[in-house]
């Protein structure tokens, strides 16, 4: 305990509330309130309605949601596979090799998403890999962007994994492939789950690279939110944003449930 006096403590808590509530809690509440309103000209929104939601689960909105979900799941699965493979391969390499591999897979974090979008656009708009105009270019860009995070969290988990399990397995006569399948991957499962949740959330909210790449028939939710607000439909945009947040939260919740069941210690 840092502050011992009652007044001191209340002052600290008041300061916290004054900073925290308007900056972090209010924005999310405001979006939620707006999504149920038709007007906002004054201190509070008015004209309560659920119409934005009935619209949000139909037509192009529903399509955008499924587009986002498919994109996020596909990108996460590919990213997790590639990222985990790379992390495992890096862990088996010597110190130098590991650093090179880690640096390579970390690079997409440092490169602006817009530039990733531009690079993918430049590279895949020409034969032999003509993907521009298809959904695959969006999925590909998302995969690139989230692979780095998958790799980062899985390699951190591998570093935390006590080598004694691997050694115990080896002393019992298990070959490396058996150790990988029966010991390492099961022990990494909680971290893989967490990484999957992270990838999914990032992909669901991705806007920068998507704006450069999306074809008309593959419009993810964030793009739809932007076009809605851009043409002034702030309340529809808010409802879509709530749908986006809810979908992300649900997925994270599901993943964390798996994680608690899969954590052994």
């Amino acid at each position: 305990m840092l502050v011992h006096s009652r007044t001191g403590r209340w002052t600290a808590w008041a300061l916290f509330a004054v900073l925290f509530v308007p900056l972090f809690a209010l924005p999310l509440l405001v979006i939620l309130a707006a999504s149920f309103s038709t007007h906002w000209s004054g201190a509070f929104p008015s004209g309560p309605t659920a119409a934005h939601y009935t619209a949000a689960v139909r037509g192009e909105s529903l399509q955008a949601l499924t587009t986002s979900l498919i994109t996020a799941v596909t990108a996460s699965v590919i990213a997790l596979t590639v990222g985990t493979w790379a992390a495992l391969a890096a862990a088996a390499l010597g110190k130098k090799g590991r650093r090179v591999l880690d640096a390579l897979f970390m690079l997409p974090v440092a490169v602006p998403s817009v530039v990733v979008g531009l690079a993918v656009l430049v590279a895949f708009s020409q034969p032999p890999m003509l993907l521009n105009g298809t959904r695959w270019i969006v999925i590909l860009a998302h995969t690139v962007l989230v692979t780095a995070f998958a790799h980062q969290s899985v390699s951190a988990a591998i570093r935390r994994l006590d080598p004694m399990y691997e050694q115990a397995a080896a002393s019992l006569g298990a070959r490396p492939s058996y150790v990988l399948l029966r010991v390492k991957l099961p022990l990494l499962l909680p971290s893989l789950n967490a990484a999957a949740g992270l990838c999914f959330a990032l992909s669901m909210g991705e806007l920068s690279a998507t704006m450069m790449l999306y074809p008309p028939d593959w419009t993810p939710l964030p793009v739809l939110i932007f076009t809605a607000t851009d043409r002034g439909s702030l309340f529809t945009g808010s409802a879509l944003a709530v749908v986006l947040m809810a979908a992300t939260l649900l997925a994270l919740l599901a993943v964390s449930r798996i994680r608690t069941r899969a954590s052994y210690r």
Partner: protein
Amino acid sequence: MPTTVPVWLWALPPVAVLAVVFLYPLALVVQESLAPGAYAEVLASVSFREALVTTMWLAVASTVGCLVLGFVLALVIAFVPFPGGKAVSKFIDVFLSFPSFLITLALLFLYGTVGMANGIWTDVTGDPAGPFRFLSTPWGVLLAEITYFTPFVMRPLLAAFSQMETAQLEVASSLGARPLRIVRQVILPEALPALAAGGSLVLVMCLNEFGIVLFTGAKGVTTLPMLVYGKAILESDYAAACVVAVVNVALSVGLYVLYRGVSRRAGA
């Protein structure tokens, strides 16, 4: 007995995938940027220079704001515990998983011309036009960036604080040190690595932020990522877009390397 595959061979498939989908495209961007005259033209243009300056000062100011705000908030959560503190930490984790542009969207309702703040002003003073009209200026972007990125500073800080020995604080306060003195002489030195790591991460992310600026919809605020988007998609000037992209990548990769160095030393 099958001959065992050399270890480095296992690293090839993922590296090959990365090369095709990321390294090769990035190389193409660099190649495209080398079109004759592209650099000279872009670097000489006013819009580029303005975007560079705007991007830099916004990123630096946001980072400073996030550091100060994040430090104060994390300090209260960790050392002046209150019921619900755990829930606040959870909330911060959730906050991190939402896209950044939601903040700008929310700010439109809070500080927009017909938003909550101006509405309250009108109700109180009777003045039909409220005083809050900073949203479409760089200040709006700054507020949104500080809001969105502060949790990225708080997370490593909270982790660092949770590892701090409370005994140290108790000894310090038993020796008669006042809270502010303890913060300055005991907590701050311990938190410096986490602050440095979190701060440099936020700096890089601010340099690369796109969603917040796009949603602000302000013509007056152009950052480097916005310029890349504008040149490529709106003007179809790919050579210029690639030049801006290379400059942006150089800036942020340079800073990211710095961040990795700092966070490795901090053990994060």
